[in-house]
């Protein structure tokens, strides 16, 4: 079964790209027109912010995190972290 967050991810990314592209449509707003510039910003940038935060809220709700024990500083310090991350080819 397809996971619900996968669909949300696609819509979130698609709508973000769409409204970012709308903000960047060449020729709009015309140069030197302050009213047009403000309307253009209101109609593209505000929806962009709403989409990003709305989509993020839905995604975080759908894709829940596992509850994990707090990784203490001491535990992190004990990891032998100086080993090369991957041996082959480096």
């Amino acid at each position: 079964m397809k996971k619900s967050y996968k669909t949300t991810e696609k819509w979130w990314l698609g709508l973000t790209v769409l409204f970012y592209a709308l903000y960047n449509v060449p020729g709009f707003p015309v140069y030197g027109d302050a009213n047009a510039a403000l309307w253009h910003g209101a109609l593209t940038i505000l929806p962009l912010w709403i989409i990003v935060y709305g989509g993020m809220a839905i995604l975080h709700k759908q894709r829940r995190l596992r509850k994990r024990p707090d990784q203490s500083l001491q535990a992190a310090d004990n990891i032998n972290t100086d080993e090369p991350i991957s041996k082959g080819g480096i």
Partner: protein
Amino acid sequence: MLSAFTTWTLYISYMGALIAFGVYVWWREKNNSARHFYTAGNTINWFVLCMTYIAALMSTWVFFAGPGGYYRGGFGYYMSELSYIPLFPVLTYFVMNKVWLLNTQRNYTTQADIFVDRFRSPTLRLVLALVFFCVSMPYAAAIYIACGKAATVATNGAITQTSAVIFVGLTALLFIPFGGVKSVAWAATVQAWIFMVALWTIGICAIAYGFGGDVFGATASVWEHTNSWFSYPGPEQWVPYSARFGYPIACAIGWTIMLPDVFIRAGYFGKDMQTQRSLMVLQPVLQTIVWTGVMFIGFAAIAMLPGLKGGDTELVIPLLLAKIISPQSATVAAILMAVFVWGTLAKGLSAATSHLLVAGSIISEDILTRLLKLKVSPNVHITIARLAVVGLGLMALWLALNPPDLMWTLIMFAIALVMPIFPVLVAALYWRRATAPAALTASIVGVIGVLLTYQYGMGDSWYGVLGMVASAVLMVVVSYMTKETDKEVLDEFYGALAKAEAEYYED
């Protein structure tokens, strides 16, 4: 406006507190590995992560060229900022959270580590190390210069730029090697608050003294006298279409994701996935607070000091204090000048120390440990890491005292220079067919593309967009033309990602 004694007192007390804090963190943390020294190894909580990220992201630009940029670019420039800021959560979700997940399994230290883990190419490590080093070092040096400039401006030349630069550079040198990235991150948390409060205090006071606190009156004045401030391409034609498109893309990808000091914060610092999510939610808000404050100062300046040209626009804060506030209250102006100096120091130090640590990790980890295969005990390794930072700190100081022309060019396109590496990162995370020769070709040609963009005078408008497009195309074409990566290598890399996702997500 400030006496040399007052300014030196500010500098010495601030730097003394910083060094004391570095020593305290050194004593408390006892960094026992280079990875912990450079990246804190996935132990930074959400609050410190958000604050150190915003502190590393911003530079002294917010006190000099930033307000000048809004002065010249107008409200359209601000809207360009608002168009890319919300892209951060999306880019973090699809890219940087995967980097973070991989890091929990693979223990990366430098930015190049993740690329080499996927493509297994020492040559790619060398290329990326060079690119990221060229980006980090001049940045640190330029910030020292800005701190020196702030002291000189604040004291009307009573303190020379050279003496202030030496003082700031040496203090940073004493501070970073002790506590490593953890002391930098915690100090940056305080420093971020200082510079944000400083910005807004200066902007609000300017409007309070210049327009009696009447923001609407100031807006009406600008609308009537400098209407072009509200439209594209701005009062000085600063935001034509190419800049409106190229600049936000460069900021979204180059500046907030790919610059080494912010990359390791978004990818290697956070202690859990909830911390990553907090970063996604809060970072656009914090960026908006900073940019709105900077815009507000530029707006106050265009309302009260119209007609400034060239380099004068970069000094709108001292000019507002001297010409608008000082005639009405010399005391308030002096206090605000101290706030300006303090804010510049806070901002400068947090960014410079971040860049120095990254540059140190490139030398000690990428070059000495990985490429030259230096085999030493952990204690010697951490000493080498500290010495690398000290050496580079001295080099940054020397650069700040003797800035070559090329350094300013490097700073100008630092955010552009790292943009072609982004398609390589995306391909590494999502595309099994991507190959090492493609990653190498895309990185080299993309960076050369950015250099050519600047060479032919299009850099100020297009930044790294053309280089990034070339890199993306080459990544695909060369991958299909070259032999597939070994299945074993791919399974190891993507298996680690899948394992981390299973550990941190419920489904």
